[in-house]
């Protein structure tokens, strides 16, 4: 995605270095030749052509819709099948000519037409309205198309349909974990891994979020705090991503890196949600119980262990701090007092320290998204503490002042300990 920007920067640098005499012209030419050619991507003619195709397709759909009820049922079914065949046929043609993006688009359109087909067949044949089952069927068809055609778009359609399915099932049965979605997710993750595709890895990472959010908010048992359950999910995603990236494989590195980035942002979001919602907005706890089910706690602990395993393999200090960040966020939950038992100073301190560890971890490992996640987490936690609706404002200002002094003292000590960068 950023290849073109990198090439432009590199070209500008090469010209500058040649002018400054840093490198010889022959060296610059060698560097240019060493890079593979840029993929042609989509040019303007193709873009205009796609718009034209979409307009024709929309006109065709509108024409069919205008005469839908007059068309015999079998003919309607045949039109649906024909739509899918045309999309697939075009996709195969584009793929054979090396136009991968357009082939991907056709496979995606085919998957969408398949979804429309499920709805229309349900309408034509008066089928019972189990919407969730329809979503599952759509997901299966779209994922099958993704496997066979390598289409990232079809994968996206399949994951969206699966996410809707799982959210509906979670809503329907809030006391039961909807584990079948995990089977679908693992399948999609294996696909993204095999494809060695960053786009697919992003899709898979995003697809995990609806299940965790739905499960956190619908899992109804006494004293549950959704943000604690979310934190465990973020911990598992982050730790698993780090562990996968530590494996000696470029595929694992790419896939794991993407997962760990989403894990880092999820951890920061969970920290912000804990500060703003625990005992304030979502539910009040009478006792300071765990506030989260055992399976969620196990997920969180596994996340910490995986992060430590990754640190052990890669021997990177940043990953140790990442494990500390995960552990501190998880530690906030058990030390959080019940709503009437006082304010959550230890929990606030744990969350602030966790976000600081996240920032430092990103800086040490040179992973910018982790740094950004950490900074956003710090901002969110401080804002949440400052504007919390419960408790004494004076005590909170004292806490924030003490935390600030501690941070400055720590920074001073670090400054003396770390070697200065020579300029």
């Amino acid at each position, binding site marked *: 995605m950023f290849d073109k920007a990198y090439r432009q920067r590199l070209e500008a640098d090469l010209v500058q270095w040649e002018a400054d005499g840093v490198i010889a012209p022959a060296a610059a030419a060698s560097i240019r030749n060493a890079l593979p050619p840029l993929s042609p991507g989509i040019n303007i003619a193709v873009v205009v052509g796609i718009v034209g195709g979409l307009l024709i397709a929309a006109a065709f759909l509108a024409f069919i819709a205008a005469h839908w*009820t007059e068309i015999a049922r079998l003919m309607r079914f045949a039109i649906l099948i024909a739509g899918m065949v045309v999309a697939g046929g075009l996709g195969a043609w584009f793929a*054979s000519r090396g136009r991968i993006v357009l082939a991907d688009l056709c496979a995606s359109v085919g998957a969408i037409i*398949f979804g429309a087909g499920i709805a229309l067949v349900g309408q034509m044949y008066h*089928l019972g309205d189990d919407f969730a089952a329809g979503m599952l069927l759509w997901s299966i068809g779209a994922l099958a198309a993704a496997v066979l055609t390598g289409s990232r778009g*079809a994968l996206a359609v399949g994951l969206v349909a699966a996410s809707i399915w799982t959210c509906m099932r979670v809503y329907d*049965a809030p006391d*039961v974990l909807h584990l079948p979605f995990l089977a679908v997710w693992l399948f999609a993750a294996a696909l993204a891994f095999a494809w060695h595709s960053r786009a697919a890895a992003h899709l898979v990472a995003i697809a995990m979020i609806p299940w965790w959010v739905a499960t956190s908010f619908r899992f109804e048992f006494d004293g549950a705090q959704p943000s604690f359950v979310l934190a465990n999910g973020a911990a598992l995603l982050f730790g698993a991503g780090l562990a996968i990236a530590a494996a000696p494989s470029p595929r694992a590195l790419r896939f794991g890196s993407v997962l760990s980035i989403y894990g880092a942002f999820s951890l920061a979001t969970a920290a912000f949600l804990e500060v703003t919602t625990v005992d304030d907005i979502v539910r009040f706890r009478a006792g300071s119980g765990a506030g989260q089910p055992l399976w969620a706690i196990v997920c969180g602990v596994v996340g910490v262990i995986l992060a430590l395993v990754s640190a052990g393999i890669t021997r990177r200090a940043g990953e140790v701090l990442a494990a500390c960040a995960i552990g501190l966020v998880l530690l906030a939950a058990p030390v959080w007092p019940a709503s009437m038992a006082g304010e959550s100073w230890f929990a606030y301190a744990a969350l602030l320290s966790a976000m600081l560890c996240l920032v430092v971890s990103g800086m040490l490992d040179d992973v910018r998204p982790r740094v950004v996640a950490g900074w956003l987490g710090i901002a969110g936690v401080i804002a949440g503490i400052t504007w919390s609706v419960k408790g004494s404002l004076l005590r909170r200002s004292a806490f924030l002042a003490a935390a600030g002094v501690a941070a400055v003292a720590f920074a001073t000590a670090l400054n003396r300990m770390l070697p200065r960068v020579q300029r």
Partner: protein
Amino acid sequence: MTELIASVTRFWQRIPKAVLFGAAILIQCVLLVLMVADRMQILRDGREVTLQTQPVDPRDLLRGDYVVLRYDISQLPAGRLTGKPSGTRNPLVFVKLAPGANGLYEAVSVHAEPIAVTAPEILIRGRVLYSCGSTSPIFCDKLTIKYGLESYFVPEGEGRTLEQARNQQKLRVVAAVLPSGRAAVKRLLLDGEPVYEEPWY
């Protein structure tokens, strides 16, 4: 592991794209056909059950060519299920139907699991729309149940007549019901005469 993935990828790339795209379309077509075939099996093998329709709120607008259907068996007392845990918000239930003197099937009892029935009784499967309970879902004392027979698409302009007949309780539905309890609309009767017959496909 990496070598295995690389060898599978190489093998996959040798397969012509037309074959892969064709296989994808075939799978999706098969899934659609299976939807229709499943319903065809109900119509072909199911026992016919005539149900009396109930008026629906007259403020409900006809949704294009789509008639909302409600039955005498759409709302039933839960009986022995009242207060029992339902497991999910919209649990499946099995309603035992028996024919009345007028040939219309009426509900006898509601069960959470399938039970054995002897002819002419029959078991129909439905899904409860609402559950009670604050901490975990339980069966309410009155159950609103959907059987998959609650909507019927007709050609445009013909729905209004059916709606009026439904609200005057002149409309009856003949459903095909499998031994498993799954049902599908087979025929619509207006004043006892068939007005719509569902073809198998």
